[in-house]
């Protein structure tokens, strides 16, 4: 029976997770090492919906790592397929609406889960056009046409 860690979301809801799962978060790992996790960890800036997702992510990745470990001596041909499976899972995982994706990003940043942070950031930004980025972050264009042309010229090599 592994040790359990209790998270408390901003709404005051409690989430019990295995220590191994909690260790995925660098912030929590530090707290566990410092032995100050008794009585639950209050996460005032993570709401329940986000926390559920974060825990899902950590669980899946702990399981995947354990499975990879167990199969290490096994056929490596299928190792590649496992990777693909986890990638597909990740892709499905981030198919959420934008506010939740933002919350996940902030949570990943706060809890220091590099994989999740990377995944969410990439989902949000990868391959997006300038217009899309402006739209996502509600940024208004403050270039004059001449200035914009200048910047475009500077980066023209990459977008031709």
């Amino acid at each position, binding site marked *: 029976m592994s040790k359990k860690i209790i998270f408390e979301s901003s709404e005051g809801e409690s989430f019990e997770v295995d220590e191994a799962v909690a260790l995925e978060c660098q912030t929590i790992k530090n707290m566990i090492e410092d032995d100050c996790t008794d009585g639950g960890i209050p996460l005032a800036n993570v709401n329940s919906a986000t926390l559920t997702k974060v825990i899902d992510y950590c669980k899946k990745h702990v399981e995947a790592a354990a499975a990879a470990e167990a199969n290490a001596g096994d056929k490596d041909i299928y190792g590649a397929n496992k990777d693909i499976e986890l990638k597909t899972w990740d892709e499905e995982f981030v198919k959420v609406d934008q506010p939740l994706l933002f919350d996940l990003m902030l949570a990943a940043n706060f809890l220091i889960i590099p994989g999740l942070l990377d995944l969410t950031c990439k989902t949000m930004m990868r391959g997006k056009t*300038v217009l899309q980025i402006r739209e996502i972050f*509600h940024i*208004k264009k403050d270039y004059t046409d001449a200035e914009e042309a200048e910047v475009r010229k500077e980066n023209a090599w*990459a977008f031709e």
Partner: protein
Amino acid sequence: MALNFSHSHVSEKPMKITEGLSESHDGVFSADIVDVLPSDPFGMDMNNTFTAITGWLEDLQADYRQCERDEIGDGDHQLFARLSIIWNNAMRFQEFPESHWSGSLFGFEGDGSCAGSFVSPTSVDKVMSRVGESSDGGENANVHPALGFCLYHLGVKDLLSVSMVCKSLHTTVCDDSLLWKHIHISQPLNEKITDEALLRLTERAHGTMQCLRIVDCSKITEDCLRKVLERNPQVVKLGVPGCTRISIDGLVRILRDLKSAGKLKVKHLETGGLYGVTKDHYDELLDLLDIDNNVNKTIIQKPRYYHRGYTFASCDDVVRALDIEMCRKCENWRIVYDCPAEDCKGKEECRACSLCVQRCVQCGRCINGVYEETFCLEFLCSGCSKLLKLPLV
């Protein structure tokens, strides 16, 4: 006054070289044509000549800046540009200070707080506040805080997109050297990136770049690589797999020169199995990278399996000091692969380069007996071809 000054320079010593080169190109300089030409078609050791010219251009740099301060009009710039190919090149090298200047122009305009700013990843708030307080009086004030740390997870192409979003982001992307600490160019930018573009990107690191990995960048020349490394002496990981213009001779020469200038920090080199590596090259590389051959061998390394494309997805995966070693079968210095097949594991006879042992392009196991040749003349083992065909049935 500025004009006379520059004329005197042109007429002093470089005139000969200028004439020779411009004649051969019929006076017209086109970046495309030069890109297509081999770097050294007749084995005349052009690199050295170019290095000499480059050195000369660097001498000119200071003078040119002087000219710039003297506020030469655009017309004069045009005049210089037409002078010769050398001048054209000079103009190209000179673009760096200019581009910085234009970058800061955008940032500083109406936003005095940005002057000389340096954004660290911990000061994400600063980025955000800067994006917020854009010149039009805080119109973008409610930008999501997540954007700040998003930037640190983006590739080169996305960063360039971000820089075109608004002025303050342009400043951030251009000035934050931490964003450019690791430069990794692969698909889809690899075929587009030119020497000029790479130099400009690497300039943004302000000499703090630690990892440079250019994959399949067929336009990047040895001269460019040399310049980049000279300007970024902190580079620890260097990867040039599939860069067809970079030869092992050139690479060793660059590293040797950097070492003798005391500017070599490279500890991990990924050559991608350059053609024609000799024992001398290999020994020199070991020496240049400070690899103790015996230590290198005793460290248990993660097995490397043959796979389509290059094994490393990111620079974090580059753990070996040097990716080539001697293939026991052909005694050439190449990338040596391990075999993932159960019955070959750990066996020395199946550790060989891709020429000695045919491997499945999917799983990397050695192929003995049944195999299938793919459309691209690659091999698939029977297991993988079955796996791949299943969904089709």
